[in-house]
């Protein structure tokens, strides 16, 4: 039955992807998607240079953040862990801010990705150290929020000393959007997320053992040191690259793993990793499509919608907490 549930998702996802290609101020009839030589040049340009990259970057971001959140919840053994909530995406923002605000002409896509992933990795590493000293579920979240404030303060200082043009670029990026990803960026974004998801799936076996806690996992033969290092790098890259291209998108990372566990009624990572990737993609596409609803060319801020969609899930975890704990 679980496998059966799995195949419903790609179908739904295709629907949402189709909607993403059609949504926007320029009306493109559905049948033109199959019969593209009927499109005008302008329509073709909108479809391939704007809508397709936007839809695809939504899919990639959603999958990457959903899986990053799942990995974090498993190795922190904390249902409230998520790349946004524990300051990992703030760390990536700091990396991006350093490159964007202080960079002088040598800004390449690769340096952005590297800076974002390093920033995310640093934040995650600090949270891992902190989690060994504090036990509670909620205290880790509080630490993450405090950590986010500190990084925000550093970023604000950087902003204060930066020229106006770069501040404008940075603040637009900070609102989160799938629309700023160019087809050329996708050549980086797609393969990195693809490889990251594959590696995550290959680590399903040790992840399943880690659910019992580090000591039990070690006693079962998990090389905990190397697995934790791999997870740290993997999560940093997935969350980092997404943040670099789409801004610090909130709540997806924390909400998606819970939705996937509830939907598949399982804790097995062999199913949860592709499951979280699919659910993450769909939620991201759904939110992205909603931002276009005003229809007159205006786009609502993505993170505002994410907060409205994601907050109920977090409240539900806080009050019921049924998918990880009991």
């Amino acid at each position, binding site marked *: 039955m679980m496998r059966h549930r799995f195949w419903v998702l790609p179908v739904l996802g295709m629907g949402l992807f189709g909607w993403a290609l059609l949504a926007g101020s320029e009306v493109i009839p559905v049948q033109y998607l199959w019969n593209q030589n009927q499109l005008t040049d302008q329509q073709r340009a909108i479809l391939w240079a704007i809508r397709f990259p936007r839809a695809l970057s939504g899919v990639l971001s959603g999958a990457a953040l959903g899986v990053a959140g799942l990995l974090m919840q498993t190795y922190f*053994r904390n249902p409230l862990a998520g790349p946004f909530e524990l300051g990992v995406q703030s760390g990536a923002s700091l990396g991006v801010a350093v490159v964007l605000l202080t960079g002088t002409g040598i800004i390449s896509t690769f340096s952005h990705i590297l800076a974002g992933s390093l920033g995310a990795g640093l934040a995650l590493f600090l949270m891992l150290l902190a989690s060994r000293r504090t036990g509670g579920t909620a205290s880790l979240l509080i630490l993450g929020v405090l950590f986010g404030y500190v990084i925000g303060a550093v970023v604000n200082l950087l902003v204060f000393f930066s020229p106006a043009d770069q501040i404008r670029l940075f603040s637009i990026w900070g609102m989160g959007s799938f629309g700023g990803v160019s087809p050329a960026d996708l050549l980086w974004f797609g393969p990195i997320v693809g490889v990251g998801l594959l590696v995550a799936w*290959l680590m*399903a*076996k040790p992840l*399943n*053992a880690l*659910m*019992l*806690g580090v*000591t*039990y996992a*070690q*006693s*079962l*033969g*998990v*090389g905990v040191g190397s697995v934790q290092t791999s997870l740290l790098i993997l999560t940093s890259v997935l969350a980092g690259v997404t943040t670099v291209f789409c801004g610090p998108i909130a709540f997806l990372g924390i909400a998606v793993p819970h939705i996937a*566990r509830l939907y*598949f*009624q*399982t*804790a*097995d990572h*062999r199913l949860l990793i592709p499951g979280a990737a699919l659910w993450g993609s769909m939620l991201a596409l759904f939110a992205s499509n909603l931002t276009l609803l005003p229809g007159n060319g205006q786009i609502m801020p993505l993170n505002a919608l994410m907060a409205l969609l994601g907050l109920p899930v977090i409240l539900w975890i806080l009050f019921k907490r*049924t*998918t*990880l*704990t*009991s």
Partner: protein
Amino acid sequence: MLSTENLAIGHRKKVLLEQLNLRLEAGELVCLIGPNGVGKSTLLKTLAGLLPPLSGHLMWNQVPVRSLSSQQRAQYLALILTDRVEAGFLTGRELVALGRYPFTGWSGQLTYEDQCCIEEAIQETGATHIAERLLMELSDGERQRLMIARALAQKTPVILADEPTAFLDFPGKAALFRWMYKWAKTEKKAILVTTHDLHLAFSFASRFWLIDRSGILTDLSPHDMVQAEVWKDTFPEWNMLH
């Protein structure tokens, strides 16, 4: 099966126990007893190869533990702890199946032989009725029963258990000691258990390792244990009860 030579254990320069020359043999059920805080859990985790010894040597089957891979270790020794397991959507059977971790391939796919080990462990520990339920629906005692089944499914010659009876009700505690006794006698496993259930330990232990409040570990047979006043000094409360 497991031996130490001048082993010293503890955390960060704080020595808890030292000069330990211990031997755990096949077919034995050894009970490690002592008041809280003297280092029972630390000793157990050190013997399990999870904490580095401060000094001295630890051998499994005459081989230094340091030279074994994590997979080899997990095929030789299984561990039962009191750590709470929180994995809501795991079923009982999936939890027991994690015991086969050191034997399965990269994807964790179970062979027919693995399935048999799992089924056997579930039946042996009387966990059939909770095998298909989700962990979030089970009590602490029922989860502990599954963790014991998981250790059994690991099919190791040595089992170390840190207060495995902690969450169990009295019939559960007694049953666990009976099983451990049986596994030691019929399957020639070497089993080391820390426990505060002295009455059960007296009925089933082959030997006692008693740690007193001054941090001295004494190796005693059940006969010596009954005779010796040493444990009554360690547990004065016991005298008041009996």
